[in-house]
Structure formats: structure tokens, C-alpha cells
């Protein structure tokens, strides 16, 4: 915290120490730019990771921070989109709990309007982002193979060798072949071999809490490096309450509060909001002023609009042979066959993940579901275990103007601020695509000889996207292609909120690539003589 109430000063103030904020902090600090990072949560001490793992294994959330009132939200729309496990406060942010899947978007994902006449094109192309994808893969340590027939061209190899296919992947591969589907490796930011001072994955099976540090998270990869430059300071338990402007197009400072509620201020030349696709628009909307009555940077009215995610289902079945699940906590195989080559004007993209950890098949789950006890229970668990196979479907969702993050003034958080209100719907085409994907997954499972094939209820990935979209037209977007707010010259909004469309691939690697690109552009403006 600042001493004696003296305002903290920096060249760049970053709000949020998650994936985007952590990468920005390092990329700026290593170029000699003085950075202050304000993080609402604590440092989750790495030495406690095994304890955190035990908490997770009890079915509780080890990343939950106090007070719970800080994370209150309300829901609207036809489908509830729960935020409880999908956002993490603290140094590392959501990268603490992510699955680690690090896929590039396909080149077509950036051009849906041009190619298919739907949604909008991004103001940048895959080719613009390609070198930054490579940098992000190197920084995070992505393990992968060049066996994805639907991958867009890449100029660099994966920095780490892929994880071997699992035992059950071999069974999936045979079944996929029978029904004309190509299975390939799933790229992931997890150490298949020791890398960048972090250990090889030890197959602990609890990737939501990686106790060894083999999974990349910016509390281990970028924040320590940023601090080691001497140019970056991270203030924890510092919740930003609002941004202050001294003129309509210029932020002069941010006001934050610690747990004691005492307000303090940081002034800087540039500000970067990296608080996620819910908190970033919330902060902008809360920073309304006489000159920006609809919220800061919101002349377009699009701040908080087009909230998007990835609808998903699990399709499971029972096979006669044992598949030996739960020996790693991540999947090793997928197919993007349905994510690229299809008429996306009428069909959403989807990809299949072949699960090494099907839901509901753990001994504990089998025991509770059996309704038996005593000797009969033991026999049931022994007999049933290891025969459940599962395929997860991630579906692309197109931006929907009905979906949004707004402020709910009737409910307040522990600082007395309006909480976010999530309005969410899933459109008919997404539902049709999920039905198609269910049929495809069922075909694969039946080719494996599976019985009792069933689909889970509709759920959603922890991917929040689109609430401060980028574009060239200030009337139709919030930030430009460098992620600078159209209306506020010294304000950048990073993270998946800037995505124009969601792809069906997880957003993390694209968040990272964009953050590196934006940091480079900020540095070239602030240190032009040194080059970016």
C-alpha cells in the first residue's frame, strides 16, 4: 500500500494481475517502463499449493477470497451464467485455475463477416497476430505437435514436445477413424518436460490447483519476472473503485481501496484495465461522469454488450473394457474437424475434447450414485469404475446484443458499489450445433461399443468474452486494434473482453498474444528511440 496516504505514481498503471495484466506488466517493465499493478485479491502463496489441492479435492474452491460480498453478482436472461468458479481474484487471476489449454484461433475465426456473412471481422488478421502467438507460446511454455490438420500456418515450432496420448486416447482414435474423424494432440501450457525453471508435470490430476507449478500461470511466469526488473510493483488487496478523468479523453488516476475500505489513489500517464470481461466493463460503467454519463469510453454504448462464452456439454457412455481414467487432470487429444471447415453461416463451430477424466466416474461419485451400502457398495464401485468414457463439446457462440454485463444498483458489494448483472441467452443456432455435436460424439462412443450414452445438461466454459470489443469504427466498438479506448487516449482495455468473436477455441493464448502486442505498441510510443 502507499505510505502515509501519498499517491502512488507510475508511468503505467495496470488494473488486474491475471493473464493479460501479468503479461503486460512484464512486457512493459522489461523495457524499462515503470509499472504499478493493482490486484484486488491476495498473493496465493505457492508454498501452500498442496494444501490448496486438498481443499479442491474436498469439492471446495481454494481460490475463493474474502469477503464473499466482493464477488456478488446477479443474473438475468433465459440461461443462468454463473461466475462462481470462473473468476479468480489474486496474483495470477484466472490463470491460477485454468485448464492450461493453449490453442491459437484459426485464421477464419478473425473473418466471419468476410467469409460467411455473419457477425463482424476483427480489425486484425491471424497473420498480424501470428508472431505474437509464437511469443506467447514461448513465454507460457506450450506443449504441442504439428498434427492438427486444421491449424493455421505457424512460423515457429511448439517450444515443448506434446504430451503423449493417454491410454483411452488410443481407443478414441480407433473409434474416430471408423467414423471419419481425425484426432490430434491438444496444445497446452503445461510442462511436458521441465521448462523455464518450472518442473515437469507430475500427473497430480488436480489441474485447477497445480501443486508443482508445471502448469503455466502468471503468478509463476510473468509477475516474478516483472518484479525482478525493479520496474514493477504489485499492490495486492487493492480493489479499484473508479477511474478519475481530468478531461473527457484523459484518465488522471484510479481510486482503490484495501480491505479496510480506506481510499487511495494512483496517478499514471497510461492506464490498462485487465480485470476480465465482467469487471472491466463494470469499472468503466461505474466511472461515469458528467462528460461521460453512460460510462467511461462508452460513447458507442457497447461497454458491457455482447457478453459471450462457450456453451458446452459432456457426452458420456459406458464401455466394456477399462479405460483407466483420472491418471492425469487434463486431456491430451481433441479434434478441430468441426471448428473450421464448415458453413459457419448456418452452423456454429465446435471442437471435441476426449476426456481423461469423465465426470461422475470417480469412486466417490460412483459410490454416492449407487444407492447401495456395505459389501454391495464396494462391489458396485469396483465393477463400475474405469468404464466411463466422455467427450466434451465446446461450441462457438456468436455475439448476441441481448447478452450483457450491466450494473445492478439495487445490490451492492462490500464497498457499496453496484454489482455486475449478467444477462445471458443461448441462441437457436448454438443449440442446433450442440445437438449436432451430441450426435457426432454419440457416433464416436457407439463406435467404441459404448452403452448408456447420455448427454449432460448445458453448461458454459469459464470464458468471458466480448464486452469491450475492438474495431476500427468508434460507433461500433470500444477499443481500436491496439486495444486503446477510442475515446480515451491514455486508456487500454486488454483481455478477452476485446474479442470481436469467440471462436470455439479457448481464449487464453489469444489474450496472451494480444497483451504482448499491445505492450509492444505502448513501449514503442513511450520509448520510441529504443524500438519495441
Amino acid at each position, binding site marked *: 500500500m502507499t505510505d502515509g496516504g501519498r499517491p502512488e505514481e507510475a508511468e503505467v498503471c495496470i488494473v488486474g494481475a491475471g493473464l493479460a495484466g501479468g503479461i503486460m506488466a512484464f512486457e512493459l517493465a522489461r523495457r524499462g517502463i515503470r509499472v504499478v499493478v493493482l490486484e484486488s485479491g491476495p498473493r496465493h502463496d505457492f508454498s501452500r499449493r498442496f494444501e490448496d489441492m486438498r481443499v479442491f479435492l474436498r469439492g471446495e474452491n481454494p481460490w475463493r477470497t474474502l469477503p464473499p460480498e466482493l464477488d456478488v453478482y446477479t443474473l438475468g436472461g433465459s440461461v443462468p451464467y454463473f461466475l462462481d468458479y470462473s473468476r479468480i481474484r489474486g496474483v495470477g487471476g484466472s490463470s491460477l485455475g485454468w485448464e492450461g489449454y493453449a490453442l491459437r484461433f484459426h485464421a477464419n475465426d478473425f473473418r466471419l463477416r468476410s467469409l460467411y456473412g455473419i457477425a463482424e471481422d476483427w480489425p486484425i488478421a491471424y497473420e498480424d497476430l501470428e508472431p505474437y502467438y509464437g511469443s506467447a507460446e514461448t513465454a507460457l511454455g506450450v506443449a504441442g505437435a504439428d498434427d492438427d490438420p486444421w491449424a493455421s500456418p505457424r512460423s515457429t515450432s511448439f517450444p515443448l514436445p506434446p504430451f503423449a496420448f493417454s*491410454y483411452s486416447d488410443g481407443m478414441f482414435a480407433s473409434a474416430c477413424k471408423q467414423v471419419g474423424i481425425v484426432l490430434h494432440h491438444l496444445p497446452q501450457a503445461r510442462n511436458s518436460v521441465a521448462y523455464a525453471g518450472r518442473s515437469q508435470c507430475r500427473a497430480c490430476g488436480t489441474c485447477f490447483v497445480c501443486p508443482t507449478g508445471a502448469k503455466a500461470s502468471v503468478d509463476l511466469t510473468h509477475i516474478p519476472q516483472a518484479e525482478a526488473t525493479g520496474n514493477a510493483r504489485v499492490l495486492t488487496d487493492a480493489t479499484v473503485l473508479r477511474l478519475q478523468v481530468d478531461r473527457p479523453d484523459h484518465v488522471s488516476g484510479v481510486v482503490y481501496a484495501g480491505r479496510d475500505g480506506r481510499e487511495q489513489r494512483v496517478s499514471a500517464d497510461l492506464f490498462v484495465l485487465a480485470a476480465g470481461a465482467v469487471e472491466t466493463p463494470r469499472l468503466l460503467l461505474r466511472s461515469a461522469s458528467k462528460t461521460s454519463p453512460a460510462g467511461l469510453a462508452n460513447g458507442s454504448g457497447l461497454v458491457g454488450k455482447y457478453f459471450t462464452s462457450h456453451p458446452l456439454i459432456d457426452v458420456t457412455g459406458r464401455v466394456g473394457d477399462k479405460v483407466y481414467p483420472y491418471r492425469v487432470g487434463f486431456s491430451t487429444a481433441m479434434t478441430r474437424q468441426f471448428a473450421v471447415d464448415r458453413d459457419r453461416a448456418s452452423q456454429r463451430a465446435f471442437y471435441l475434447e476426449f476426456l481423461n477424466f469423465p465426470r461422475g466416474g470417480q469412486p466417490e461419485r460412483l459410490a454416492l450414485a449407487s444407492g447401495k451400502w*456395505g459389501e454391495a457398495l464396494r462391489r458396485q464401485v469396483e465393477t463400475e469404475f474405469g468404464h466411463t468414457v466422455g467427450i466434451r463439446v465446446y461450441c462457438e457462440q456468436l455475439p448476441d446484443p441481448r447478452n450483457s454485463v450491466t450494473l445492478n444498483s439495487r445490490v451492492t458489494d462490500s464497498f457499496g458499489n453496484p454489482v455486475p448483472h449478467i444477462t445471458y441467452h443461448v441462441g437457436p443456432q448454438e443449440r442446433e450445433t450442440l445437438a449436432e455435436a451430441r450426435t457426432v460424439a454419440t457416433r464416436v462412443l457407439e463406435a467404441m461399443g459404448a452403452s448408456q450414452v447420455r448427454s449432460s445438461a448445458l453448461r458454459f466454459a469459464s470464458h468471458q468474452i466480448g464486452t469491450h470489443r475492438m474495431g476500427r469504427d468508434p460507433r461500433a466498438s470500444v477499443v481500436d486494434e491496439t486495444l486503446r479506448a477510442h475515446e480515451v487516449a491514455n486508456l487500454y482495455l486488454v483481455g478477452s473482453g476485446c474479442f470481436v468473436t469467440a471462436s470455439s477455441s479457448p481464449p487464453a493464448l489469444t489474450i496472451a498474444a494480444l497483451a504482448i502486442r499491445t505492450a509492444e505498441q505502448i513501449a514503442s510510443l513511450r520509448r520510441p528511440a529504443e524500438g519495441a
Partner: protein
Amino acid sequence: MENLVALAEVLVQGRALSPSERADLVESINDRTLSTPGYLSLYRLTARLLDRLAQTRFPDLSLPQRAEIVLRHRLVPDGEPGTSSPPPSSSDPEAAVRVLAVPELIASYYRSPAGWAVVGYESFPGRCSDLVRYTRPE
């Protein structure tokens, strides 16, 4: 704790647990009671109820006698799995045990190393291993 282990023996295996199985179960129960408010008092209530129903120390009964009490007083869920039961009231300790304590005891055992051993796993989520094992059958 002895009462809980004596009940768990009836529920999870239908036999006496080995010392290592007991140790795994006790650790799992302790983990829950130390971390989640309400479980300590639930388990105290369970222990008192068991002694009352047994009219002696519940662990002193033989396994068939314990099983008979569990059956007679319907301490195990009798509906289809997943059937929602009404929340137990404080005046119905049998229901509290049936709806809350018994499922948690079963879960505690089957998520512990002893539970994973039932399915033949020495390594499992939470006990790290290597990157070869998952590629092969056990």
C-alpha cells in the same frame, strides 16, 4: 471418531477396516470437519444417536448388529440415487444422519487413498505420479 468409523465400516465395505484404511478414513473425516463449518456438530449428533440406538457403545456391537441398527432405523437413503430429500429438521436426528452424515462418510472413504485402492489405484488425483502411467493400462 470411533462411532463414525464403526458406522463407516458397515456402510463402505461391510467389513472391518484395516488399520491403514481406518487411518485414511479418519484423515478424510478430519479434513472435512476442520474445513467445513457444521460437520463437527453433525458428527457429534451422529455419534450420540448411534449410542442411543445401540443402547450401548455403538463400536462395541458386532458388524451384523451395527448393520441391523442401520437398517431398522433407516439410516441409509432408501430412495433412488439423486432423489432429493427434504432438509432434515433438528428434531429428527435420524434424518440428519441419513441425509447428511451417511453420504459424507461414504464420500470421505471413497475419495481417500483407501477408496482409490478399491479400484486398484495407488496414484490418483492428489497423489502425484509420472507421465508414463497414464499412457498404459494398470
